C-alpha cells in the first residue's frame, strides 16, 4: 500500500486536498460591503516552477494601499502567474504573499481583517450561460445576504460605472471584446473589492477601445477606493494609469519606479522594451 501511494502521490494528495478545500470554506461576511479600503500587498521571495520550468524567481514587491500599480514585461515572463499568486489561485513553491499584513497562504483570515479581492481575467471569463446582469450579480446572489431588490440596484449601479448602464439583459455572446472586458470589471466591482487585479485588460482591443477602457479604469480610481494592480504589455496604457510600474523580465522584477523613472531608466532591457513597443521593430 505504501508502495502504491509513493508511486502515485496524486491519489492521496488529491484526497487530502479535497478535504482541506472543504475546510477552507469561508464564512459569509458582507457586513462591510459599502466601505472598500485599499489594501497593501507585499510579496516576499516568491518562487514557482511548473515541471522544472522556473517561472517566478525570487519575486519581491511592495504595493501601497490605494495605489495603482502596473506590472509590465514581455509575453511569457510569468506576469499572469504572479497575479494568480496574489489572488491565491496558485500556491507558491516558496515565499509568501501578505495582504494588509496577513499571509494569504495561512488562510487565518478572520472577519476583522478580511479583505476582498477580485480579478479581471485576460479572457474576461464571463459565464456565457448567464446574461450581463446575472454575471455582474453572481457573487451577490450566491452570497444570499442582500434582498433581490438591492442586488438589482447594485448591478445597475456597477454597470453604469463602466459605461454599460441599461445593458443588463444582453446575452454575453452578443458583446464585443471591449464590452466583455467592461462587464468583467463590473462583475469584479460588484464584490466591492479592496483590491482589484487586471490581467492584460487591453489585450485584443483596438486603440479606441483601449482608450475607453483606460478612461473607465482611471475614473474608478476617483470613485472607488481600492488598490489596483494591472498586468500589461501595453506600455503607454500602464504608464498613463499607474502611480508606479514594475518591469518584469524572465521571471524577475528588474526595476520598480514611477512612470517618469521608468521612462528615464538606463536599464538596457527597459530601454529596449520601451523602444520596441513605441517605435516599432527593433533594428528599424
Amino acid at each position, binding site marked *: 500500500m505504501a508502495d*502504491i501511494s509513493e*508511486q*502515485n502521490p*496524486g*491519489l*492521496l494528495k*488529491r*484526497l487530502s*486536498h*479535497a*478535504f482541506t*478545500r*472543504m475546510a477552507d*470554506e*469561508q464564512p459569509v461576511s458582507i457586513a462591510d460591503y459599502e466601505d472598500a479600503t485599499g489594501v497593501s500587498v507585499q510579496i516576499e521571495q516568491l518562487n514557482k516552477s511548473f515541471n522544472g520550468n522556473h517561472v517566478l524567481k525570487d519575486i519581491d514587491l511592495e504595493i501601497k494601499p490605494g495605489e495603482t500599480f502596473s506590472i509590465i514585461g514581455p509575453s511569457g515572463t510569468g506576469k499572469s502567474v504572479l497575479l*494568480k499568486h496574489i*489572488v491565491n*489561485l496558485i500556491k507558491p513553491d516558496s515565499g509568501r504573499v501578505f495582504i494588509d499584513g496577513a499571509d494569504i497562504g495561512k488562510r487565518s483570515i478572520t472577519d476583522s481583517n478580511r479583505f476582498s*479581492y*477580485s*480579478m479581471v*481575467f*485576460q*479572457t474576461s*471569463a*464571463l*459565464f456565457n450561460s448567464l446574461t450581463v446582469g446575472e454575471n455582474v450579480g*453572481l*457573487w451577490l446572489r*450566491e*452570497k*444570499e445576504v442582500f434582498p433581490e431588490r438591492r442586488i438589482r440596484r447594485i448591478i445597475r449601479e456597477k454597470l453604469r460605472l463602466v459605461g454599460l448602464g441599461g445593458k443588463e439583459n444582453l446575452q454575453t455572446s452578443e458583446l464585443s471584446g471591449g464590452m466583455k472586458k467592461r462587464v468583467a470589471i463590473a*462583475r469584479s466591482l460588484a*464584490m466591492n473589492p479592496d483590491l482589484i487585479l487586471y490581467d492584460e485588460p487591453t489585450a485584443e482591443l483596438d486603440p479606441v477601445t483601449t482608450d475607453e477602457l483606460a478612461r473607465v479604469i482611471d475614473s474608478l480610481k476617483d470613485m472607488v477606493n481600492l488598490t489596483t494592480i494591472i498586468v500589461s504589455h501595453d506600455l503607454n496604457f500602464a504608464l498613463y494609469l499607474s502611480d508606479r510600474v514594475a518591469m518584469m523580465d524572465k521571471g524577475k522584477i528588474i526595476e520598480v519606479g514611477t512612470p517618469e523613472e521608468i521612462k528615464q531608466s538606463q536599464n538596457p532591457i527597459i530601454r529596449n522594451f520601451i523602444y520596441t513597443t513605441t517605435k516599432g521593430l527593433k533594428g528599424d
Partner: protein
Amino acid sequence: MLRAIGKKLLNSAQASGEILALLVETLYYCKDAPRNLPTIFRQIYDIGVGTLPIASLMSLFIGMVLALQTGSQLAKFGTQEAIGAVVGLSMAKELGPVMTSLLVAGRIGSSMAAEVGAMQVYEEIDALRTLEINPVRYLVMPRLLACLVSVPLLTIFAVMIGIVGGSVVSDVNPVINVPMTVYFDNLKNSLEASEILNGLVKSFFFGGIIAQVGCYVGFKTSGGARGIGYSTTRSVVMAFLMIMIADYFLTRFML
C-alpha cells in the same frame, strides 16, 4: 514497451484516484443542493428530455433485434414461448441500463467535458474561485445529482420500450410467431421486481460515473480549443470503459 504500459496503468490509477477525490468533494457539496435546485432541474430536463427520443429509438431496435436473434434460435428447439422472459430479463438487467448509459455518456458526458473544459481554458473556473464560488459545488454537484436521477428514469423507459419492441417482432415474425398475450404472460411470470431494481441500481451508478468522468476530464482540460476537443473524446472513452468495468463488478455483487 513495458514501460509505456506501466506508465499508462499508473496514469489511469491516478485518474481513478482523482475522480474518487472529486466524488468525495461532490458528495460533500450535495448538502447545498437545495440552493441549486433550478440548475439541477434544468440539467435533469436537458439530460432526460433531450435523450429520451434517441434512447427510445435505440431500445426499440435493441428489443427487436434481441427478439429476432434469440427467438429464431429458441424456435429451433420449439421453446419460443420463453421469448418474453429472455427479452425482459436481458433488457431490465443488462441492456437497458448499459446501453442507456453509453448513450448518455456519448451525448451528455461529452458535452459536460466540453463545457467544463471550455470554462477551464477560458479561465472561467478561476473566475468562479475568485468570486468565492466553489466550482465543484457550482458545476459538478448539480450535474451529478441530475445524472443520478435522470439515467435511472431513462433506463425505465428504455426497458419498457425494448420489451414492447420485442413483443411486436415476436408476434409478427413468422418463424417465432408468439402472440403478445403469451409474450407478456411469460414476461410477468419470470420478471421479478428485484431484477428490475437490479438494473436501476446499475444505471444509478453509471449515471454517477458519467457525471464525474465528464466533469473531471473537463477540469483537466488544457491547451485551448484543441484541448477541449481532446477532452470530449477522452471523456467518452473513459466513461465507456468505467461503465463496462463497473457493470461487471455490480453484476457480480448483485448475483
